[in-house]
Structures are given as C-alpha cells and as structure tokens.
C-alpha cells in the first residue's frame, strides 16, 4: 500500500513546539483528517485535533496544510503532492492550546456584541427572492478560516478593533434581512471596524462554503455605510422604501 509522510506540529501553549514526522498508509479517497486520526490511534494517542462531523459540515477541523488553509476533513490526500511530506499546522491567528487545537473563544465574544434579529409583530411573510442573498451568508459553518487569513487579524493582530469577515457577513445577513428592524451601521463603522478591511478578498478565497464574503457582503455594506454617513438623504429614502 502507498504511504505518505505527515509532519505534524506538536506543542503546547507558551512552550513552543516542533514538527514530528509520522508515516501513514494511504487509501483511496482519504482525507488529511483520516491521516491525523490514524496517527492518534497508532502512534500518538494524545495528538490534539478538533473535529466533529468529518463531512465538511461543522467547521471544527480547520488547519494549515502545506501552508494552505482548509478543513482537514475535506482536504483529499490525493490533491497533495505525496512525494513530499504533508505539513499540518494549527491556525496561526488564534492562540495555541496544543498541537492542532487553538483557542477560538474570541470569535464567540464578538458574536455576543452583534444585536440579534428583531422581527416585527405578527406572522412573518417572506419571499424566496428576498432571502436568496442572505441565505448564502447563513451557510457559514464558523470554521473561522476567513478570520484566520484576514491580514488585519493575522498580521496586524487587530482583534481589538475589527470583528473580521465572519462577522461582517453576520451583520450583512441581518442588515439585508427583509424583516429586521434594527440598524447596525453605527456598530459596523465603530466597534465593528469595517474601515480596516481593504477588500483584499483573501477571506473569500479560503471559505469552504464558497460564500462571496467580499463581493456580496462587505462591499454592499461599505456602500450602505457610506450612504449613511455621507448621504443621509439617500439613507432616509432607502429606509422609507423599506430597504
């Protein structure tokens, strides 16, 4: 049977770490997570890996594989050059807990700061045409890969001033909801820090759900914020028109 060499980052918080080399048998259709679980069961029972569904649906298993960001349960081994070792690292933007597991709790703190959906009284009537575009944002599986790649968070570590792309689409989804009654533009411009985004589109490229984060969420949001702050008349007209 064919074999592959996997170099896995191993280490704990505050202690740094190093690559460890493992050899795993390669089966047809195998994904990187299979290799990691093989290592766990056969060589290193304490290898820390986060995963749940193993079907690209829960967004738990994000990692950096040969320097590329992806879900380890979706990344097929046969899509990688197996002549060379496969290098698996944890997400860089979040503090390390151990091996491939990072502390992503910051994201949950941001979630709390976004005012939730607030519908009007009575039965809710919505048409498919009106929700098509926000249903796209609801596909998000919170893998946090977009947060991980965004240079504002990754390179400049501005977690104190920018919510990141995942929460830009969260706000977009609420702002573009046909029945929502709350306005979050102040938040976007203020604490949300949308001004930090300079539309590099890196987030869109890594999204495993193919959500068009920049084109469909961030750019339209920026336009709305611009209207709101620089063209109050147009903003009022839109509000009156219900959108």
């Amino acid at each position: 049977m064919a074999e592959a060499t996997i170099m896995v980052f191993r280490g704990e918080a505050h202690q740094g770490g190093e690559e460890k080399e493992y050899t795993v048998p390669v089966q047809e259709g195998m994904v990187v997570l299979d290799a990691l679980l093989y290592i766990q069961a056969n060589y290193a029972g304490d290898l820390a890996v986060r995963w749940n569904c193993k079907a690209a649906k829960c967004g738990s298993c994000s990692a950096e594989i040969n320097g590329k960001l992806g879900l380890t349960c979706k990344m097929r081994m046969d899509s990688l050059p197996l002549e060379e070792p496969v290098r698996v690292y944890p997400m860089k933007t979040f503090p390390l807990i151990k091996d491939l597991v990072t502390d992503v709790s910051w994201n949950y703190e941001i979630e709390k700061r976004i005012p939730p959906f607030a519908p009007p009284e009575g039965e809710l009537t919505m048409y498919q045409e009106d929700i098509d575009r926000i249903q796209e944002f609801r596909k998000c599986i919170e893998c946090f890969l977009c947060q991980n790649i965004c240079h504002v968070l990754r390179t400049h570590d501005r977690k104190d001033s920018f919510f990141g792309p995942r929460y830009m689409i969260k706000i977009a989804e609420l702002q573009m909801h046909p029945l929502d009654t709350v306005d979050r533009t102040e938040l976007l411009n203020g604490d949300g820090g949308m001004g930090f985004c300079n539309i590099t589109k890196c987030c869109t490229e890594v999204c495993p759900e193919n959500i068009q984060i920049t084109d469909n969420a961030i750019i339209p949001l920026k336009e709305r914020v611009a209207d709101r702050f620089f063209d109050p008349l147009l903003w009022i007209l839109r509000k009156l028109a219900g959108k």
Partner: protein
Amino acid sequence: MMEMYETHTHDVIVIGAGGAGLRVAIEVSAQGASVGLVCKSLLGKAHTVMAEGGIAAALANVDAGDDWETHFCDTMRGGKMLNNWRMAQLHAQEAPDRVKELERWGALFDRTKEGRIMQRAFGGHTWKRLCHVGDRTGLEMLRTLQDKGVHSGIDVYMECTITDILKDGDRVAGAMGYWRESGKFVVFPTKAIVLATGGIGKIYKVTSNSWEYTGDGQCLAYSAGAELIDMEAVQFHPTGMIWPPSVKGILVTEAVRGEGGILRNSEGQRFMEKYDPENMELSTRDVVARAIYTEVQEGRGSTHGGAYLDISHKDSEIVKRKLPSMYHQFMDFADIDITKAPMEVFPTTHYIMGGVRVEAETGRSTVPGLFAAGEVAGGMHGSNRLGGNSLSDLLVFGRRAGMGAAEYAKGVDAGSLKIDESQIELNEKELLAPFENTGGQNPYTIHQELQDIMQAYFGVFRTEERLQQGIEELAKLRVKASVLTIEGSRIYNPGWHLCRDLKSMLIVSEAIGRTALLRKESRGAHSRVDYPDSDNENWGKVNTVICKHGDEMKVDTSPLPEMPDELKRLFTEVK
C-alpha cells in the same frame, strides 16, 4: 490527596448544546432560573448541525389537508405503535408553534410562492411536511438557537465533558467533569440537571454520527439510577455512503428520495416494488434499510456492495438547488456528479429511538432532579423514527424539559443539597487511572474492537445465537478494557478523553445487546430473523427497561401507557 477544582453553581445545568440542549437552556433562562450549558465540543458544532433533510411540523403550507392528528398517526404508525402516545401527541400538536418561533428567532426556511415556509415529502409522512433549508436544515436550526442562546444570558461552558452526576440521597445535587483544554476537574453544584447529550452511533463501525456520540447521557442516567427504555431500537438509516472507505457511513439525506430519487439494484431493477409497492422509496427507514441489505445479501449489490440511488433524471439545476450539500459531498469525496450518475448507498447506524425514560409533559426521569430531552430521551419515536421528527422533537421537548427543570428547581432549597466530597475523590481517581496504569490496553484499540463487535452482532438483522455470542464478546471486552493506559499530559488529550467515553459506550452496548435479546419479535428497526413477525399480543404492549441494580444491569419489561379512546379512534377513522 484530592486536587483543587473550580465550581460553578446554577439552578439548572444542561448537559449538551445541540438543538435540544440549547432549547432547554433558552427556556430555563426565560423562566428566570440561572442556567449553565455544558458541552463537549465548541458551541455550534453539536450533531444537530449535520441534520439535512428538514423538520417535521403539520403547518399545512403546501398540502392543506395536513393537521396534527395526521402527524400523530404517522408518527405512531412509523414507530409501530411502541411510541409513548402522549409524547407523540404533544409533539404533533406543538411542532408548528416551535417552528414559527424558530423563524422569529431568525431561521430562514425555504419559501413557498405565497411567502410561507416550504415543506417537502419524506418517508412515512402522509403529506409534504418537512420544513427545510435546502439540505442544511440542522445548521440553520442550530445557528438560530445559538444566536438566541448567547443573547439570553446563558453561561456556556464549552469543551467541558461531564463525567458523573453527583447525588444527595435520591436527589440530584451536582455534576462533575473536566475541561478538555486543561484536563482540570470542575464541579457544578445544581438543583436540576437536564441531559441533552444525543446518541450512541460511535459504538458502531459504520455510522453517520460524530465522535461525540458515545452514549454519555444514557450512561450518566443509568449510573444515577434512572431507567432506560427500548434500547434495542437502533435506527439504521438506509442510505449511507459506502465508497471511498474514508467516507463510509456518512449520511445521504432522505431528502434525495423525497425529491424523487430512485433506488435500483445491480440488475437495474427498482427493487422497492417488491418490499413496499405502495410507498416505494418513501417507505419507512426500517423497511428500506432491510430491502437494501437483502438485495446485497442476495447478490444484487452495486460495485461496492450497496444499492444505486439515482436522482440524475431530475433537472440538474434543481438538484443543485435542493440538495447542494449532497452535490458537494459526492463531488468532493467520491468524484461523482450526482446530476449525471447514481450514488452508491448502504445502511448506516444513525439514531437511537430508545433512551432515558421520561414523563411526556416535563421530561422528568425516574430520578428526582434529573431530566432528559432530545435523542438521549426515549419513548417519542417508538421502534422507528420518521425522518424530520427528531428536529421537531428537540424543540418541543427541549422547551418542555426547560420548563420542567426550572419549575422543579424553584421547589428545591439550595442549602438543603450536599455534595459528597468523597464521591468526587473516588471519581477523580477512576478518571486519572489510565495515566498511572502500566501495561494496560490502548483505548483506541478497544474502541475499534467494540465497533467490530457491535457491527457484527447487533446490526440490521439479529438472531438469538448471534446476540448471545455478541453479549459474550462484550463481556470479554469489558474485562480487557478495565485497565487502560495512555500517554501524554492532561492538556487536550483525546486518548485520555476516549477512556471515559469508552465507559459510556460499553454500558450502552450492553444495554442494546441485552434488550435486543429480550425482545423476541421484529418491530420497526429491531429485526429478528428468528422471530420475523411482530407479536402484538406479547410484545406490542411493553417497553424493554434497563436499570442498575448494585453493579448488575437489570433487564425487564414494563407496560406501555394506554392510549385514550379518542386517540385510538383516529386510527380507525378513514380520512
């Protein structure tokens, strides 16, 4: 010497943050009680996130003829009348309100032309009844509840595993567990506990379930002295992926058949004609699973030993719109374009109908202060669950258990509950043993052996002889598993975590084995080759019951609650 541990005190502790647990916690909080929500994984990753096809509620948006009575009868018939009738009734009556409530909290279901919630057909449901969002309904539901939950003042303890329930005499007094991150112990003094831990699929080799499905809740309840019912009723979903090996068991949603998918064998025959000519592919899951199994056994299996499931005769854009996850799942993992070629499928362990015995109205178990809701609870689905009836079950009984637990907690004086330190010390010692043991077994190996046993002896078709053998194998494995050894530190150590999970899995496996042996008939998902028929006289009127007697597992039966006449009449009326 006992080590220091942190404590967090609440009126109610909810164990599990799937659809059921979140709905419980939201309700407890709405009732004004303080609530702690504990889950093994990160928030938003629970199993509910994987649900695909939809949530059943008789809204009658698409088929005007639907009503709760029909939903109730469908559910009871699907469960082969073993269901707790009261649960099935409350479920059918309340599901529509729970779905509408979910919409008010932000869920965006697909719409009908009139701007109402869209509904689709599913096996065993008389009308188009499943509210859905493409084939990612569970994600929509879980994210909505998560958003509602984080804005409801719930304290969430993520990546924290509960290992033991602490009692003061008969009553619940707290729960203890460990943080996955640090490996440190934590104690939750509380007046009431609601179990919402989900299912048991990980005891089988081929399953649609995630690693979390190790039967912890069933085991916690059992150890605390509660009764488990109908544990033999394990649902094998007819359509799991079979190829490539890496994805074996992953679910192919029933929505494929709901949207018109056809099952064929290697001879191109639409074989459901033989097994259920009236309902064909939309027969109930137990029937379709047995049909596929039989076709393969009799030599008419597909290339990799399953059946072909074909949706390629439908318009490819509609397939992509209605079944986007399935389209990607087959494209990404199996290099198959389902709009052009058939899928290969085979039964996969999916769901457990049995579970903690609860009172329908409140979710109360037989132990004071202990409640259960969702997949971990038994009774609602009888011996076979209809698709879509789980998500609605989570909401209906999540809310009810939340009310039940909050109400119970109000009547308990916190000062009257004592936590027994010596019990904590004992539990800690047991949990830490794998670090000290030398020459013990590798937990991963034991887990694989368990999965092999369950797959071989307790699968779709069962016989007395095989069940007996399986039970003996399990007994041997328990001895082997009594000394486990692991490596590494307590920090985020999955090998260590698995040791505790194995304890749950072994108990649940034994419970399934013993009840499967006891029930000498075939009913719903429980198929005995040696007793191929349902025996309504002897077995149609009883639940199997498991409970703990000293160190022994006691197996028994108890009478089903009697359905009132006005509901019985629903089954004889022609509609």
